[in-house]
C-alpha cells in the first residue's frame, strides 16, 4: 500500500480552506450571540455569485469581490432577522439557507439553461510543482492572515472585546455604552463575508465551474467545528485541518488499489463521521457563549 504523505498533507490544506473561512465566519456571529445557520446558503451564494460574476465580468478578482458583497448582504439579512426583528435564530438561519440556495438555483437555471457545464477562469496554485507549499493564495490567506487576525482581533482589540461582551452579557454591555445592535450587525456581516469567501474558493479555485451540490453540507460541518473548537480560533482551525486530513486521506484511499472495493460514498462520508466522533469525544460539558440564541431587548 502506498499512500503519498506529501500529497495528503498538501490536499489537507486545500480542503480545509473553505472550512477555515466558514468556521471563522461562524465564530464571529456566535461569539456575538447569534448562531448563523444561514452559513450553508451563504457559502452557496458565494460560490454561485463568484462563478457568475467571473463568467460575466471576466476576472476572478471581480468575481471574488462580488462573492464578498453577496456574503455581506446575506450577513446583513441574518442580522435584520435575528437582531432587529428578533426571529428565532434556528428558523431565521434555515430560512436564509433555503432562500439563498433556491435563489441561486433559480438564477442558475435562468442564466445557464443550456445544461452544458460553463467553465470560468480560476485562481492558479502558487509554485505549482511544490506539493505542500504549492497552494492557492486564498489558502495561505486563510491560514496565515485571516486566522491569526481573527484571533488577535477577538482577544486583544477593543472591537473584539466589545463583540465578546455583547455575546456574553448584552445587558451589561449595553449599560457600558456598547451598542448591542451595531456590534451584532458588524459581526454577522463580517462573518457572512468570510463564509462567502469560503464558498467562492470552491468555484474560483478548486473547480473553475459551478455545480448544484458544490457546498454539500460544508456549512454544517463549519458549525460543528466551531462547537468542537469551543469558539476558540486555534482549536477551530485545528478541527478544520482534522476534517481536511480525513477528507484528503479518503481521496487518496479512493485511488489506492487495495481499497478499490470500498464504496466511494462510504469514504466520502468518513469526514462527516469523524466530525461527529470528535464531538462525541471532546464535545461534552461545553459552555456556550452567555447570550447564545438570545435576542436582546432593552427591558
Amino acid at each position: 500500500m502506498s499512500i503519498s504523505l506529501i500529497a495528503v498533507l498538501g490536499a489537507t490544506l486545500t480542503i480545509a480552506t473553505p472550512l477555515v473561512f466558514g468556521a471563522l465566519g461562524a465564530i464571529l456571529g456566535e461569539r456575538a450571540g447569534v448562531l448563523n445557520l444561514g452559513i450553508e446558503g451563504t457559502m452557496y451564494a458565494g460560490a454561485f455569485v463568484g462563478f457568475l460574476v467571473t463568467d460575466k465580468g471576466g476576472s476572478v478578482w471581480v468575481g471574488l469581490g462580488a462573492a464578498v458583497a453577496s456574503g455581506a448582504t446575506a450577513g446583513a439579512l441574518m442580522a435584520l432577522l435575528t437582531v432587529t426583528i428578533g426571529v428565532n435564530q434556528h428558523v431565521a438561519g434555515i430560512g436564509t439557507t433555503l432562500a439563498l440556495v433556491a435563489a441561486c438555483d433559480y438564477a442558475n437555471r435562468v442564466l445557464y439553461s443550456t445544461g452544458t457545464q460553463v467553465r470560468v477562469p480560476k485562481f492558479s496554485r502558487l509554485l505549482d510543482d511544490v506539493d505542500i507549499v504549492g497552494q492557492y493564495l486564498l489558502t495561505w490567506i486563510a491560514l496565515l492572515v485571516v486566522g491569526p487576525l481573527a484571533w488577535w482581533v477577538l482577544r486583544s482589540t477593543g472591537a473584539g472585546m466589545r463583540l465578546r461582551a455583547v455575546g456574553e452579557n448584552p445587558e451589561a454591555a449595553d449599560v457600558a455604552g456598547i451598542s448591542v445592535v451595531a456590534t451584532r450587525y458588524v459581526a454577522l456581516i463580517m462573518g457572512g463575508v468570510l463564509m462567502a469567501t469560503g464558498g467562492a474558493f470552491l468555484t474560483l479555485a478548486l473547480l473553475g465551474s459551478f455545480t448544484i451540490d458544490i457546498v454539500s453540507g460544508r456549512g454544517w460541518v463549519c458549525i460543528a467545528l466551531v462547537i468542537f473548537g469551543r469558539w476558540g480560533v486555534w482549536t477551530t482551525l485545528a478541527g478544520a485541518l482534522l476534517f481536511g486530513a480525513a477528507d484528503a486521506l479518503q481521496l487518496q484511499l479512493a485511488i489506492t488499489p487495495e481499497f478499490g472495493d470500498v464504496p466511494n460514498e462510504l469514504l466520502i462520508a468518513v469526514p462527516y463521521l469523524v466530525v461527529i466522533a470528535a464531538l462525541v469525544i471532546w464535545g461534552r460539558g461545553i459552555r456556550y457563549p452567555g447570550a447564545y440564541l438570545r435576542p436582546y431587548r432593552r427591558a
Partner: protein
Amino acid sequence: MGFVGGGRDSGWRASAAAAVAIVLTFAITAGPIRGAGANPLTAYRRYLVTPLTSAFSVQEVLLAATPLLFTGLAVAIAFRAGYFNIGAEGQFLAGAIGATVPGLHLADLSAWLALPVALASGAVAGLLWAFLPAWLKRVAGIDEVVTTLLLNPVAVLLLQGLLNGPWRHPESGFPDSATFGPGYAMPVLVGSDRVHAGLVIAVAMIAVTGVVMVFTPLGLRLRAAGQSPDAARFSGIAVARLQWTSALVSGAVAGIAGASQVLGVQHQLTGSIAVGYGYTGIVVATLGALSAGGVLVVGLLLGLIGVGSQNASLVLQIPPQMGDLVTAVLLLTVVSCLALRHYRFAGRRRAAAAEP
C-alpha cells in the same frame, strides 16, 4: 430600534401579519419572475389557482402534499418539545431505505403483510437515524442542531452508495433499485389515479397528534417542556426524557414519510427522492405554528405551490426552483411579521413609558 414591546396578542394582529407577509413575498419574488420573462401575476395564478381548476391537478396537489404533511408533522413533534430536529431530511431518506429492504429482499410477501412490514421498517430506520443525536443530547448534552444537520449529507451518501452498489438496477445498470415486489404498492384512493393511502395515514397521524397535544396531560407537558423548560422542570416534568421521546417519535414519523413516498409513488428507490422534503418539513411545521391543524393547512398549501411551479415551468418557462424560493421567502416574511406584531412603533415619549 424603533420598536417596543406591545405585549398582548390578538387574532386580528396575527391575520394582519400573515397578510402583510404574503404581500411582501409577492413583492420580493416578482423581480426574479420578471427576470425569467414572465408576468408575476400570471405566474402566481399558475402557482395558486390553476392547480385547483381540474380534478386531475387537485389530485396532484394531494400527492405532492403527502410527504410534506408527514415531514411537517415530524418536525412539529420535535420542535414542540423544544428539541430542534433539523435532520428530518436524513431520517426521511433512512425511512425510504428502510422500506426498500423488505421491498427488494422479501419481494414475495402478500400485500396485507408487505405494507405493514415496509412501513414499520421505514419507521424503525428513521428512528435509528434520529437515535444518535437524541442519545448524544441526553447523555452528553451535545447540541442536537449540529448532529442532526450533519447526518443529512451522510444519509444522501448512504442512499447513493446503496444505489451505486448492492441495489444497482440488475437489468438497466442505472443507479436505481429494481421495482419492489407486487405486494408493496400502496393502495390508490378510490376515485383517484395516483393519490395513495399515504395521504390517509398522514392525515390520521396529524389528527391523533392534534388530539394528544390539545386534550391530554402528555400534550400539556410537551408544550410546557418546549415553551418554558425551566418552569416545566420546576413543576416536576421530566423535560430531558420528553425531548428524548419526541426526538425518536419525530424520526419515526419522518421515516414513515420516506417509506410512504417509495411505496406510494416510486415503487423503487431512486436518487430523485432526495429533493429536500425534510427541509421543507421545517417550513411546514414553522408556518403551521407547530400545531396539527397548521401542519395540515400549510402542507397542502406548499403542495399546491409545488404543483403550480411545475405547471408554470412548462407553460411559462419559469424554472421550477421558483416554488422553493416562494416557500423560503414566505417562511422568512411570515416569521418576521409575526415577531413584529408584538411590537409597535414608538414615539419618543411613549417609548420611555412603555412596559416590557
